[in-house]
């Protein structure tokens, strides 16, 4: 496609060239007959196909995404801008967003992951915020397959390369493994920024005659049509034949962050708008900025900095070269801005102006190469709704699985060494988690925590999703993903204040994938409303499937919590021998989609039972109150592997033991009933803690100095060496 000579408008129509860009016959006919009333030329058709792709237009998902709740009273900026913003007091705002980079990271894991990090960082600083933290949520196929190990290693290298170099600490995230991700690994990155509310910046191009300034890396032929690429599913035959990959340059991005923040913070009077060039590059950023201001733009493509000679307008507009920003600056003040860029070693170039006729008008070599209404590019995109049909698999689930566990101690050891549960320290140590000197809790705990300098406040953040539950029941799975994120925040001492999402699904035209998407959005929305955590930003990644087999639907939830006083920061590890251990929440025989089911049956099935949002909410509020009242020593949420795993993880940091008695059967140590926590409490706070928590807690034992895990169960006893368990857990990834 790169070398393709430009076809005439008639050839595009007759040979249906638009199809290879992902545009349907119907869409093309809409453009010709209803919108332009003429045939689009090559550049125009290419622009429309790129901008009308799912990746840019959300045409298949918009009707569903509107269901998300994003109204909370603290929301300063909801979905629509580069990222959303929430009021955190003291005239400060927290900005965050998550984004997927799945397909590029499968093709070229190092650069794909690196550019994924770069892209989401630009979304944050273009809002005027200084990026203060990164989190990565990764999914790979099972590590028994060498290709998956390679993908993981290179993905981690790419994230480390970019995040470490640019100097933003990676403070959290998670990594999960399942064969469903075998040929479609997931790389979701979340970035969090902080700023003064006065600096909140919008991405608008308004004011006739104002200048459009381009800054950053030159435009090359890399990643052309990445937007349509990201929206198309993979097939094996394509695997070896890829067009240009984007290469990230964290050094360039560091200069851009510093320069753009300088401009936003000190020259907001002359800066009208700023946006990064992400998917569909220059056309997307310039057309969206114009659309928001209901204006048009005239751009001279000869002025766009180009890395290669003889680039066509189509290539210049749709290139996804990284590290590029577009600014709209008040007429007459261009030099001020360009001089600032120069000081940071960057070249800012005026490439055009805002017009008042609403047209997206481009020239190259003195000729008009595109002249179509901005609203046709951005707003006239058709929307598609699909019927929501419950698949038989969910309507008639298989019988519930109940494992037989004869030796709960050995089962615990086995589960701890499963890659999804095992320690991720060998990965996390490759990320600089402490640069910026704000990190209080580094990756490896329930939530990553950074303090907000010169205040008593801190932010807790996490990313979560268990695709297995969503696969078994998308609606409850969505509720659970949101609940688990909120539990992690609270376990760190935070009050959840907002969420972002990355919806990783299959082809929306496949009814099962569409059902999963619709229902999980319903579930997330229900939970977010109840928890008062508005969804302020998000991203959709569809066509996550290989050879027609979709991945488990994986709607990642990124959540941020506010810690009002830094003495409320809580971690998951037990602090003293002699402390009492409690479990919050009831335990049932819940094994559908659990790690133990996967381990024993090598697949998952069944119904998700016993989950109740009200109980979840009540338990979480009580746990939060116990932290704020300073009644607890440690809090750890229960997730994969259930109570057994959670108790073990509570001990590992300081090599404590546990001595306890549970009114449970051996297998129930590994049940994954939701809404539960393990909490340790100093003996002197026993009464106050129990009084506050009422009947939702039960004391189950005590932390011991001797590193032995002793658990009396109704059908058996566990007696394991903590050091042996820890070794299994530490070596699970290798």
């Amino acid at each position, binding site marked *: 496609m790169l070398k393709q000579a430009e076809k005439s408008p008639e050839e595009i129509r007759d040979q249906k060239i638009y199809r290879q860009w992902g545009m349907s016959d119907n869409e093309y006919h809409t453009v010709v007959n209803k919108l332009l009333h003429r045939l689009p030329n090559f550049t125009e058709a290419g622009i429309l196909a790129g901008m009308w792709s799912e990746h840019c237009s959300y045409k298949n998902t918009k009707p569903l995404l509107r269901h998300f709740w994003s109204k909370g009273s603290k929301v300063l900026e909801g979905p629509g801008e580069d990222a959303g913003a929430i009021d955190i007091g003291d005239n400060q705002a927290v900005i965050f967003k998550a984004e997927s980079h799945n397909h590029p990271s499968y093709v070229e894991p190092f650069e794909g992951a690196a550019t994924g990090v770069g892209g989401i960082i630009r979304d944050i600083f273009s809002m005027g915020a200084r990026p203060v933290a990164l989190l990565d949520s990764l999914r790979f196929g099972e590590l028994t397959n060498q290709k998956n190990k390679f993908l993981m290693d290179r993905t981690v*290298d790419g994230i*480390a390369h970019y995040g*470490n*170099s*640019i*100097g933003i600490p990676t403070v959290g995230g998670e990594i999960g493994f399942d064969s469903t991700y075998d040929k479609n690994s997931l790389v979701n990155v979340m970035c969090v920024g902080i700023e003064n509310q006065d600096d909140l910046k919008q991405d608008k191009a308004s004011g006739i005659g104002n200048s459009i300034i381009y800054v950053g890396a030159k435009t090359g032929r890399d990643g052309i049509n990445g937007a349509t690429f990201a929206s198309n599913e993979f097939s094996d035959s394509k695997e070896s034949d890829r067009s240009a990959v984007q290469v990230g*340059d*964290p*050094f*360039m991005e*560091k*200069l851009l962050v510093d320069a753009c923040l300088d401009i936003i913070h000190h020259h907001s009077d002359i800066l009208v708008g700023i946006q990064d060039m992400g998917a569909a590059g220059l056309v997307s950023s310039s057309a969206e900025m114009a659309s928001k201001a209901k204006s048009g733009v005239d751009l001279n493509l000869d002025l766009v900095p180009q890395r290669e000679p003889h680039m066509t307008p189509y290539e210049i507009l749709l290139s996804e070269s990284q590290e590029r920003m577009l600014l709209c600056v008040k007429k007459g003040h261009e030099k001020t801005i360009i001089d600032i860029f120069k000081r*940071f*070693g960057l070249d800012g170039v005026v490439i055009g102006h805002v017009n008042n006729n609403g047209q997206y008008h481009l020239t190259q070599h003195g000729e008009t190469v595109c002249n179509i209404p901005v609203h046709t590019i951005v707003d006239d995109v058709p929307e598609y709704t699909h019927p929501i049909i419950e698949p038989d698999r969910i309507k008639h689930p298989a019988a519930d699985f109940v494992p037989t566990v004869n030796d709960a101690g050995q089962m615990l050891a086995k589960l701890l060494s499963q890659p999804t549960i095992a320690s991720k320290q060998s990965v*996390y*140590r*490759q*990320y*600089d*988690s*402490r*640069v*910026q*000197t*704000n*990190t*209080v809790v580094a990756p490896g705990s329930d939530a990553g925590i950074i*303090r907000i*300098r*010169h205040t008593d406040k801190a932010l807790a953040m996490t990313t979560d999703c268990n695709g297995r539950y969503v696969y078994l029941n998308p609606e409850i799975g969505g509720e659970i993903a949101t609940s688990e994120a909120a539990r992690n925040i609270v376990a760190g001492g935070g009050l959840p204040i907002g969420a972002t999402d990355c919806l990783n699904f299959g082809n929306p035209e496949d009814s099962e994938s569409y059902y999963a998407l619709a229902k999980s959005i319903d579930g997330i929305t229900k939970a977010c409303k109840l928890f008062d955590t508005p969804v302020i930003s998000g991203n959709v990644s569809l066509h996550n499937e290989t050879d027609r087999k979709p991945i488990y639907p994986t709607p990642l939830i990124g959540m941020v919590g506010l810690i009002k006083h*830094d003495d409320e920061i809580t971690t998951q590890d037990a602090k003293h021998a002699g402390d009492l251990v409690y479990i919050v929440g009831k335990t049932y025989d819940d094994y559908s989609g659990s790690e133990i089911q996967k381990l024993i049956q090598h697949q998952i099935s069944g119904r998700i039972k016993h989950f109740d949002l009200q109980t979840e909410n009540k338990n979480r509020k009580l746990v939060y109150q116990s932290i704020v009242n300073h009644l607890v020593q440690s809090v750890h949420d229960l997730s994969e592997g259930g109570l057994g795993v959670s108790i073990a993880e509570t001990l590992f940091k300081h090599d404590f033991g546990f001595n306890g008695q549970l009114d449970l059967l051996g297998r129930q140590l590994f049940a994954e009933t939701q809404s539960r926590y393990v909490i340790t409490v100093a003996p002197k706070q026993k009464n106050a803690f129990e009084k506050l928590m009422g009947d939702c807690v039960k004391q189950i034992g005590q932390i011991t100095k001797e590193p032995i895990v002793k658990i009396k169960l109704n059908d058996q006893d566990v007696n394991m060496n903590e050091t042996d368990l820890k070794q299994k857990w530490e070596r699970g990834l290798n």
Partner: protein
Amino acid sequence: MRFAVISFPGSNCDRDLYYAIVDSLGEQADLISYTSTDLSKYDTILIPGGFSYGDYLRSGAIAKFAPAMKSVKAFAASGRPVIGICNGFQILTEAGLLPGTLQHNTNISFISEWEPLEVVNNKTPFTNQYQVNQKIKLPIAHGDGNYYCDDDTLKSLKQNHQIVFKYRNNPNGSVDDIAGIVNRKGNVLGMMPHPERATEKILGGQDGLTLFQSILNSIKVRSLS
């Protein structure tokens, strides 16, 4: 007391150092550009960590040509204290202010950890507030932290007591477990660990603050004598 923190394009620990001096140590600091050449109003120069020029070519290789580096050399020649941390250490070795070089960690990967160290020499302007052989903990965060020098250089480092900090469980393959060294005169320190990340209790430890207090002390002592 006034510290200069030199920001190179791509430095990312410059602000961290600034805050360590201003907030934790309670002294004055300026972030100055790599193009500045006038260092006359400063008592100590700090060269921060990060990825100057993206660490492209070799860590520190491009930064050594920055205009400020000429002035840093003159400043060091006058006997006043200069510290290079992490990438700053790499820049000082590339610039010839310290012997040796820093290569890839032996495991190839970047390592970010709290690392146990030992203070080998407490008779420097940077370590006089530590005990000799004191065990401390500082964060490391580097991909190229593996200190290398030839045998003759190592011998002279030892003879002149230029080795200041050693790793207790060598994480990166450094010769003789070296984590930080001074020049022969003792007024230029290069170290891979990050003292500026360990100046507040909430961040996990304060062993780094002692290093900055040592500088204060040595400058006070010098101005008294």
